[in-house]
């Protein structure tokens, strides 16, 4: 199947800081790609690059291409890129409290998307809005459309943000930590809704999250980023059953699980380095239990590993 979204060796800088280095990703329609890593690993920046939004934060692509449905987005005009966002790419932000305009009624904020991108009339846009709200299992959709953002709970607001992302009838949803600000019972609802949208409508979902539980629950493939580089990319089952990269293993090992004895939870020592202090060689080596002299000196290349790829000098030793 041809990819809906394809990043080929994309590098990104802001000022003199080279923040992303040769990131390659593919996402097909009807699939969910999870983008994971600690804060500062480059997850959100990758998403911004995928949507052509880097200029907003003063960033620029210094190498590689981003293709959406076969088209190079760097070759598009600003107008074409704007038409792409909202119409073909919907965006769900982390914090629904700040994503909505506090002085506009809910319905009007959703209506405007389909009026702008689909050219619908006022009435048709409202009908579509109510339909979307009902599909997202919002009770009393008509009353909610007349409400103000401050009258809704966090989980309800996040569903409104998802409705806005869907209003332009997109092919791709980019969701940046969509459940991080929510309570667990509400998170479960939102994750179920996102999963169902992909399965029922054949959407593609690029899901940025730090929560490996969420990844295991709904993703098809997983890309693990560390300090601006791809550490590993693979289908979800091998990522968890036989993680190739020590960083992936460490991330999974950080999660408290049922029946775990006290003292068996281990963090990753140290912290993600800043962009101006990236160490030479493998960027993970200062925190890696398996680091050797080779890791400290030479950047490990991305090499095929099962159904995926990984960048580690010690892959052959670890792989089964």
């Amino acid at each position: 199947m041809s990819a809906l979204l394809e990043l080929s060796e994309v590098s990104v800088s802001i000022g003199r800081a080279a923040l992303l280095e040769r990131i390659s990703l593919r996402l097909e329609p009807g699939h969910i790609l999870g983008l994971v890593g600690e804060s500062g690993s480059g997850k959100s920046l990758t998403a911004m690059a995928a949507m052509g939004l880097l200029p907003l934060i003063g960033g620029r692509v210094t190498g590689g291409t981003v293709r959406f449905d076969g088209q190079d987005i760097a070759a598009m005009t600003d107008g074409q890129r704007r038409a792409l966002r909202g119409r073909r790419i919907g965006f769900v932000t982390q914090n629904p409290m700040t994503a909505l305009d506090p002085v506009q009624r809910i319905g009007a904020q959703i209506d405007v998307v389909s009026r702008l991108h689909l050219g619908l009339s006022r009435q048709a846009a409202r009908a579509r809005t109510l339909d979307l709200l009902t599909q997202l299992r919002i009770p009393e959709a008509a009353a909610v459309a007349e409400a103000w953002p401050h009258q809704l709970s966090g989980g309800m607001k996040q569903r409104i943000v998802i409705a806005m992302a869907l209003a332009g009838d997109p092919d791709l949803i980019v969701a940046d930590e969509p459940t991080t600000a929510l309570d667990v019972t509400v998170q479960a609802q939102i994750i179920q809704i996102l999963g169902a949208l992909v399965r029922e409508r054949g959407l593609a979902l690029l899901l940025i999250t730090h929560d490996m539980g969420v990844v295991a629950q709904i993703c098809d493939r997983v890309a693990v980023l560390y300090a601006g580089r791809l550490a590993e990319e693979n289908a979800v089952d091998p990522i968890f059953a036989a993680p190739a990269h020590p960083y992936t293993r460490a991330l999974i090992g950080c999660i408290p699980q049922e029946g775990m004895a006290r003292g068996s939870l281990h963090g990753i020592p140290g912290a993600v380095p800043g962009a101006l202090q990236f160490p030479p060689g493998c960027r993970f080596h200062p925190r890696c239990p398996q680091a050797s002299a080779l890791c400290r000196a030479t950047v490990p290349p991305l090499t095929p590993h099962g159904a995926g790829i990984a960048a580690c000098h010690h892959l052959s030793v670890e792989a089964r």
Partner: protein
Amino acid sequence: MTPPPLIRIEALTRRFETGGGFLKRPRTMMAVQDVSLSIARGEVVGVVGESGCGKSTLARLVLRLLEPTSGRVLLGDSELTALPPAALRAARKRMAMVFQDPYSSLDPRYSLAEVLAEPFVVQRRALPSGAVAAMLAAVGLPETLATSHPHQLSGGQRQRVGIARALALEPEFLVLDEPTASLDVSIQAQIIDLLADLRDRLGLTYLFISHDLGLVRYFCDRIVVMYLGAVVEVLPHADAAPRHPYTRALIDSGFAPDPARRRTIAPLTGEIPSPFALPPGCAFAGRCPRATDRCRTDRPALGGDAAHPVACFHPH
């Protein structure tokens, strides 16, 4: 004979009144309702619940950073909730709090040495020589950071400073209010390791507040589950089978990091009721799959097995 508990919380209640004005009746919000709990010396008790369940209010009431509407808190023999200001200040040496957000709980203008000296200033005590270095070392930070300011530190380092500050006066009891909620999981695990180690080394007692049941089950000896200001269940140990439908729902909402254990999520329907207008019966009845007519009219009291009390007419 079991030793007396270090902390006794008795029928603690806190209401907030808001919105009163000309011709406008104030509205009353039940933040914490009739909570009783004892904590033994050396124990780690977890309090878990979603936003608005009253867990942070409870944390502040226990340290008397907030005054209760009714009820009492005892630290050993001294009744914290009845102490006059001077005696309360003296008692504060014995307890401390670690806050959720290490970005806003440290003064950006203070160096770490100043942050760590502050508790001594408040207590009008001389700072022992070498104390700052020792405090930093106790939480795994190098002495060279003493002259650094908070903005030069990572989130995990800041939270270590927050813990070091809480330990400055050698307290017996710490309230930890979501100490890892704003950190990456990799850093969260480091901080939890550190807290476990400090407890063993210094014989500390913790009240650990969190929204993350998985984390609480990993770290705590006993677990108090709160919903809308009230305790709905106390799990006697981490592996105890939950009996309250809400505790079940909390566990079922978490996802295991294992695609082999994917499952259909049966999400809770409905929303959490407003704490300004609690329903007359069980506060959870509107979202509960087991609710009957009785649950909607009568409020179940926390009871049953004294070691594993639950507030439910139809427990599992």
